[in-house]
């Protein structure tokens, strides 16, 4: 009976999505409609689309699971998501990006950068970085939903992965950004309802807010000995400063994702779609509430799953999920939440992953079609929309391949990887380009290339996850990374847990400002056009 209801709810949901995608397709006529929704999108739709794209499955399943491991310390990410990802992004980045994008007639994030610095290289390079690496981030989202469909709809993993991708491909390729944003907004509403129920029900099961936190505090002695050595002090007590866990949470997740959101191409594109600053102001209201309901709830429910699992089954969350962080929230839904919540959660998950994936595919496509093929190669007059559609198709294929080869417990890792890479490469020239007329083309190029290279050097030779996966350091120096050989008590050994962004972002900023000081300034007439 439950399975039939799940199928029915899913089918109804897919029909609504198809209708909204069709509506977006009918309203798409020009390249501007396809890329930036004719710069006339409703603020509520834009804010929900921004929030749904921003959060997606990654926050609900990925970061919810990670919070079950590290505890309430991860709430810093929720705070950063609201303050930086919404307030600072919309108020201090959004307005200027919108105005500059309009003045320069830019349709994509790389195009904003390329036009600001009058550089086809910057636009093409940024486009290729996004096109090359966004499939890894997209694959992490795809893995989450395909695994969840495998359990809920009994669809084999590979079949679910392919079918889901093909369905998305149809509406993104046909409908462009309007189809993506209309469906995102609907999906945002579904996600909001789902998360509200999840939060209220969890606190209800534990007898209220403070009793729930106290119950979690009381089971602190269950923290495994190995975690205590890594810096865990209980789910409500914060992490030991300077410990490996502290570096992972604060440098990779809170700093990497919390700050990295400012230079996310699929989110910056949203600023170009609204008609006025007023729309951005209104979107702050919707976005602030929405992100609170998404990240805030997932980072709160995640740690609380430990106490509920312990009360009912005698085990903490990670043990219940057989060691896979990404399975903690799905297991919680299946074993603790009431039966009627299952279909709602599945639809919410479909919505979350569709919203994120569709935007990722769209950005991957425009990065290749508009930024690389159209501008960097100078072939914009012939078949730019076709090249963009081809780019979307190639992004989807790359995502499917990554989806089949990436390991488990990867969602939060892949998100931090892509966010960090974008921030190190683009944030200094994007932020300084909005506020400082003194940034030069050479400074912007040095910052972008320098930030990207520093990130990769750190990943290959220092950071524990990427260096182990890539194996280059082992091949050259016979050790998994250059910090691993030092005594575990030394500060050098801890460097392997420091996220690449901690090193790359200051270097990227320094390069941007330093090189700009000594190189030729941008023409005054161009600067007037940018800042008018």
């Amino acid at each position, binding site marked *: 009976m439950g399975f039939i209801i799940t199928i029915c709810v899913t089918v109804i949901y897919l029909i609504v999505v198809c209708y909204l995608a069709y509506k977006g397709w*009918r*309203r798409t006529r020009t390249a501007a409609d396809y890329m930036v929704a*004719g*710069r*006339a999108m409703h603020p509520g739709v834009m804010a929900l689309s921004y929030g749904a794209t921003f959060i997606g499955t990654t926050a609900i399943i990925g970061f919810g699971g990670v919070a079950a491991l590290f*505890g*309430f*310390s991860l*709430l*810093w990410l*929720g*705070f950063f998501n*609201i*303050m930086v990802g*919404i*307030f600072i992004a919309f*108020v201090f980045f959004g*307005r200027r990006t919108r105005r500059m994008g*309009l003045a320069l007639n830019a349709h994509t994030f790389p195009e904003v950068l390329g036009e600001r610095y009058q550089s086809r290289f910057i636009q093409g390079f940024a486009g290729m970085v996004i096109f090359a690496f966004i499939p890894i981030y997209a694959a992490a989202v795809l893995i989450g939903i395909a695994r969840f469909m495998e359990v809920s709809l009994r669809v084999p993993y590979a079949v679910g992965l392919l079918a889901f991708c093909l369905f998305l491909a149809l509406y993104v390729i046909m409908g462009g950004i309007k189809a993506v944003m209309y469906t995102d907004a609907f999906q945002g509403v579904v996600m909001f309802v789902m998360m509200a129920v999840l939060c209220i029900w969890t606190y209800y099961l534990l007898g209220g*807010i*403070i*009793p*729930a*936190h*106290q119950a*979690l*505090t*009381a089971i*602190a002695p269950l923290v495994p000995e190995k975690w205590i050595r890594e810096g865990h*002090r*209980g789910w*409500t*007590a*914060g992490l030991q400063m300077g410990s490996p866990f502290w570096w992972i949470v604060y440098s990779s997740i809170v700093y990497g994702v919390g700050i990295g959101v400012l230079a996310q191409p699929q989110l910056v594109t949203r600023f170009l779609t609204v*008609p*006025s*600053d*007023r729309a951005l*102001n*209104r*979107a*702050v*209201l*919707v*976005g*602030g*509430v929405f*992100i*609170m309901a998404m990240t*805030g709830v997932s980072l*709160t429910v995640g740690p609380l799953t430990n106490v509920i699992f312990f009360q009912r089954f005698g085990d903490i969350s990670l043990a219940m999920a057989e060691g896979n962080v990404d399975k903690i929230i799905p297991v919680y839904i299946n074993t603790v939440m009431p039966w009627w919540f299952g279909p709602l959660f599945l639809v919410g998950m479909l919505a979350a992953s569709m919203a994120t994936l569709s935007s990722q595919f769209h950005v991957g496509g425009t990065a290749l079609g508009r930024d690389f093929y159209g501008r960097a190669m100078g072939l914009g007059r012939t078949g730019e929309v076709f090249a963009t559609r081809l780019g979307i198709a190639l992004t989807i294929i790359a995502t499917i391949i990554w989806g089949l080869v990436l390991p488990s417990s990867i969602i939060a890792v892949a998100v931090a990887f892509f966010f960090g890479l974008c921030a190190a490469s683009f944030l200094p020239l994007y932020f300084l380009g909005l506020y400082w007329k003194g940034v030069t083309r050479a400074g912007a190029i040095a910052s972008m290339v320098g930030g990207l290279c520093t990130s990769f050097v750190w990943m290959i030779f220092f950071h524990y996850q990427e260096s182990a996966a890539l194996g280059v350091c082992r091949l050259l120096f016979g050790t998994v990374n250059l910090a691993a050989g030092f005594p575990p008590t030394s500060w050098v050994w801890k460097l392997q847990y420091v996220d690449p962004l901690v090193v790359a972002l200051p270097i990227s900023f320094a390069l941007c400002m330093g090189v700009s000081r000594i190189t030729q300034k941008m023409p005054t007439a161009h600067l007037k056009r940018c800042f008018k």
Partner: protein
Amino acid sequence: MVEEIQTMFQGNGGILGFVSAEIAWVYIGCILASLLCVVYGLIQWNRDGKSTRVRRARRVKKGGRPRRRR
């Protein structure tokens, strides 16, 4: 009255039932940040409303046929 509020707020384990004050403040900080967005959105609701739609409409008038709204 003050004592009642303090008891409700602090519980047994610390502020809001958390061991660490840092965690309690970030929990409150999330709610306040969200409220800040709401208040800012309400205050700024009708400010800076110059729309690009106007420019689009003018451009259409000059050059091509008027677009039908759906």
